[in-house]
């Protein structure tokens, strides 16, 4: 039986018709948020990561109905090509993107960290990114990029 999901996505209030068994990942992609990537679909790779109510979560292993009255941020909501978010800019500047498939989830995990902790240690960055697998580049560059983004956000760069 279909139901209406009331949710705010990237600051816009939405009413979306969903099925009770639909995954949040599938709903977000269906309504146009294609930056939320479908990877493993079993909660392992993290490329489907979004921010829900202030916490990074994997949208492939949660039902859309769980997000009722929630606030979602996807990669589409944090920057544009002309005006990228400091984390996006840092990923470009540090050259830590190859195929790019893991990057939306990784950037949202990084944003979730920096929103709460604007001056994280390397260990804290590594802990925050531990749910996002990158099969191209490894992780040291991305950790460096998050540190650089933190400095930029703090106005030190």
């Amino acid at each position: 039986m279909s139901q209406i999901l009331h949710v705010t996505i990237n600051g816009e209030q939405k009413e979306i018709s969903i099925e009770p068994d639909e995954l949040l990942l599938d709903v977000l992609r269906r309504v146009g948020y294609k930056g939320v990537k479908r990877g493993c679909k079993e909660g392992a790779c993290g490329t489907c990561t979004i921010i829900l109510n202030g916490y990074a979560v994997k949208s492939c292993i949660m039902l859309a109905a769980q997000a009722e009255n929630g606030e979602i941020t996807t990669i589409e909501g944090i920057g544009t090509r002309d005006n990228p978010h400091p984390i996006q800019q840092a990923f470009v500047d540090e050259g830590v993107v190859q195929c790019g498939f893991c990057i939306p989830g990784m950037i949202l995990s990084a944003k979730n960290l920096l929103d709460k902790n604007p001056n994280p240690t390397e260990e804290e960055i590594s802990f925050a990114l531990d749910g996002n697998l990158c099969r191209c580049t490894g992780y040291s560059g991305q950790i460096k990029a998050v540190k650089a983004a933190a400095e930029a956000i703090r106005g030190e760069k």
Partner: protein
Amino acid sequence: MKNVTEYLYPSDLSQALILYAEHEESAYIAGGTHLAAESRNNTKRLIDITRLGLNEIIDGNGEVQVGATATITEMYSSPEISKVGNGVLKKACQLIADTPLRNAITLGGNISRLYTWVGLPVVLLTLDAEVEIMNLHGERKRVPAADHFANGGVKDGDLILKVRFPVRNAWFHSYEKFSLTTADYTWLTIAFAAEVKDGKITDARLAVSRITKATRLKAVENALIGQEIANIDVESLLTVLESSVDIVKDFRVSKEYRRQLLGVLFKRMIQKLQEETK
């Protein structure tokens, strides 16, 4: 969750119980990390219990009470959790899955179904925690963790409300998870706790999971009691340890490997006990 036809949001606990009782194929959902990935499931009605205020973490009377829908991240970040077992509960939370999963996984979800790979049951066992459960008639009961796991977890319609963790800081505590990567399934999870008085072990708890269902190894605990810290007979303990676990099959790793692993991690815990209680 291909068969789900209803997803409901009760406004309070009593409504949750009513919604559950009126449909034969009901299930409660909190973090949903397993339910959402489950393809073989007959559940038709899901009842969301994350909006009922069941996520409080309260410190008092020598115990810390943790609500069933507290996420692992909420537990890990809580100063109250750091007080339990000299930080052993916080360490267990740190080693569960990965950050986005810890943001979703709840305490109740981690202990309601008896999956061997989940991280918290062994530490509930070594801390002698109690699980507070409400049945479909609204009756509350407190179940020792050892009984909860031995009896197969929650019964149909039972709802975990909270877990009471004794602070128990006078004991030595240790917890280890062995996995190939941070986010990979564990190969062995082990927790150990010991009370030491006048240089002797006076009480002990040892629990393992993944190599078998979460269980206390009472033969090893009994063999530990009375041993002098300075002269622990590790070799004979290892013999008892080996014979006290019937290791289950795992297609990724042999029983022999995990038997060896169990011995190594246990020995390291004993060494740590000796160092910390000199």
